[in-house]
């Protein structure tokens, strides 16, 4: 049998005695953690930086990719042009950014609040689950952007249809993860609590909520990203009254590529920042949860 652990060797004094030597992580744990984190940071910064550099070069030299896609400087903005864009210094521009941020925050708060509430109720009560699950599951599959004409009819042409569409989209993501999180709390926890004779409120406060919060925050983080997606989608469809989506659309319809690219970059930045904020709040509220509990997020 071959020994595959580099830190473990077969002792020469006897063939069946194994001796394991400590690795770097054990000999210099702090240095090891420091090095690992440095490597992670280098990758987190280096990979996007390398891609941006590639983009800048492709733009500068107008590369012709695969002989089909020419990077025409008239239609594509470079990272440098985006960062140094005059648009970033215009007050109207930042008004659009604030408009989008406000819509997203309000929509997210409404949708997440309702999603957590309904999710908790359905996770804790079979009757509520029986009553609402088929209906919500059916509605979940409806593309939310398709509801926009309906919302425009109900709420008119002001901010409400935009905010409500974000809220409804967020609701479904949060509702499902909350319900699943409550139902996934191990039966042993409940039985242990019941053996202490806890009330329903105590069961919720001390067992179900702490047990489900990590998973709920996974849902909230995913919903934060989705909120940005639907926000930009709505603003693209109804570009009046501003917003980052309307900036992107304005750049397209006025043939100002720089504006479109700045808008796209800002949408990405908004999504990243918002997801990080939700993640940070999660870490404040649930310090017992694993550090990174949402694959692919943050």
């Amino acid at each position, binding site marked *: 049998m071959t020994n595959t652990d580099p830190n473990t060797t077969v002792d020469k004094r006897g063939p069946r005695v194994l001796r394991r030597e400590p690795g770097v992580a054990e000999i210099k744990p702090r240095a090891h953690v420091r090095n690992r984190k440095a490597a992670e940071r280098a990758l987190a910064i280096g990979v996007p930086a390398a891609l941006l550099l590639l983009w800048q070069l492709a733009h500068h030299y107008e590369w012709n990719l695969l002989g089909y896609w*020419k990077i*025409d400087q*008239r*239609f594509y903005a470079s990272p440098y042009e985006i960062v140094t864009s005059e648009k970033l210094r215009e007050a109207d521009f930042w008004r659009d950014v604030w408009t989008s941020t406000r819509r997203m925050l309000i929509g997210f708060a409404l949708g997440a609040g309702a999603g957590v509430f309904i999710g908790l109720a359905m996770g804790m009560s079979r009757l509520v689950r029986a009553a609402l699950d088929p209906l919500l599951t059916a509605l979940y599959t409806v593309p939310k952007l398709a509801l926009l004409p309906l919302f425009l009819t109900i709420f*008119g*042409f002001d901010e409400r249809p935009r905010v409500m569409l974000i809220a409804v989209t967020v609701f479904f993501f949060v509702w499902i993860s909350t319900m699943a999180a409550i139902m996934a709390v191990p039966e042993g926890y409940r039985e242990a609590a019941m053996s202490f004779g806890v009330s329903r409120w105590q069961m919720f406060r001390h067992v179900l909520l702490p047990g489900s919060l990590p998973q709920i925050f996974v849902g909230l983080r995913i919903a934060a990203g989705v909120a940005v997606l639907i926000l930009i989608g709505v603003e693209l469809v*109804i*570009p*009046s*009254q501003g917003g980052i989506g309307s900036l992107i659309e*304005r750049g*397209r*319809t*006025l*043939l*100002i590529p720089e504006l479109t690219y700045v808008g796209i970059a800002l949408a990405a930045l908004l999504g990243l920042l918002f997801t990080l904020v939700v993640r940070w709040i999660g870490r404040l509220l649930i310090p017992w949860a694993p550090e990174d509990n949402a694959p692919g997020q943050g």
Partner: protein
Amino acid sequence: MRGTRKDWWLKILGLLLVFAVIASACGDDDEGSDPEPGDDASDSSGDDSSGDDSSDDGDDGGEDADPLAGCGEGAVTDLSPDRDVARCEPGYPAPQPLEERASVRLATNFWGFEFTAPYVLALELGEFEKENLDVEVVTGVSLADGIVQMEDCTVDITVGGTEASLHNGISAGLTVKQVIGNYFPPDAGDTSIDQTGLWARADAFTNPDDPDLTELEGTTLGTAVALGSVINYPIGLAFQEAGVSLLDLDLEVIPSADLPLALENGAVQSAWVLDPIWSQLADNPDFVLVATQPPGEALGGLYASSCFREDRREVAVAFIRALIRTMNTYLAEGYKTNNVEELQVLADVADIPLEAFTGTPETLMDWEMGEGTSERAQGFFMEYGVLEYDEIIPEDQVYDRSIYLEAVRGPEG
């Protein structure tokens, strides 16, 4: 052996002779088919007697018939706002089929509207075919998207208005230019006649019989398009004459079909309402027409980059010739009574009842591009802050009138 060699030479000579005879016979056939453009023109007129007559005139001349015979002095105007719209005889300019079949890709966001009639009918009634053109239509493409596609020759020609995107594109170094106009309402400028224009709620004015546009300052204006659209040129013009800027109003972008409803429920106090949607507001005392399109000005048309205008000039001229012939044959003045069959074709394409077209006043189809429209529109676009440059681009960099001039006047233009 010598005798055999001589026989071979004789056989080869004989074969060459046979080939020569066959080749010359084929050549005769080709030449014999040349006069067909005149025939085609007469076919194209269908039941339209005037079209038949004029194209028959073309036939009479056979090979020597002048394909531009029906395009006299009236085919070119002085481009002033009060001019009579340019016209040739029906069936003219006669087809001059390309020697080799050519394909043309037309990109448009609009298909089946009345102002699209020239190219819809040219396609449906075979006018492109007569020029030996194979036209492919790609729908759902805005002018801005089409301009980008045209620059790498993916698309040949695009439909749209004389919009901010066109001017921004030209300013950025794109080769796009407008090559043909489209239409204007015959009663443009006269608000006493119901038509496309700026409609408002009567209760927005102290005296609706003599509406004062300054009273709309601070109210909401509904429009189907954003500030970069050419529609905001006539709207801006109307408000400018009243001493108000369009920027002094709140703009709400609302789908065209919903504008009457938005006016009715007070969501907007005024709106630019297009054909035939304004007919929902006509004869209703709650609404008044307060401004129209400027007279004699087509606010849009077709656009092409150098790929089509220069590199495929012959094809471009053939394409425009087919459009002009379609306007003269099926869409000349009186077409709503004289060319109902052709309108039915348009109605079928649009999938709407014929009455939607016959119930509204005629549109004056105009292939020319009036003088100064682009520059005046740019002035308003600059005020609205939708242009990426500071000095107005002269119209010779925006318009290429040489193609339609060649179509009606020949290569000398």
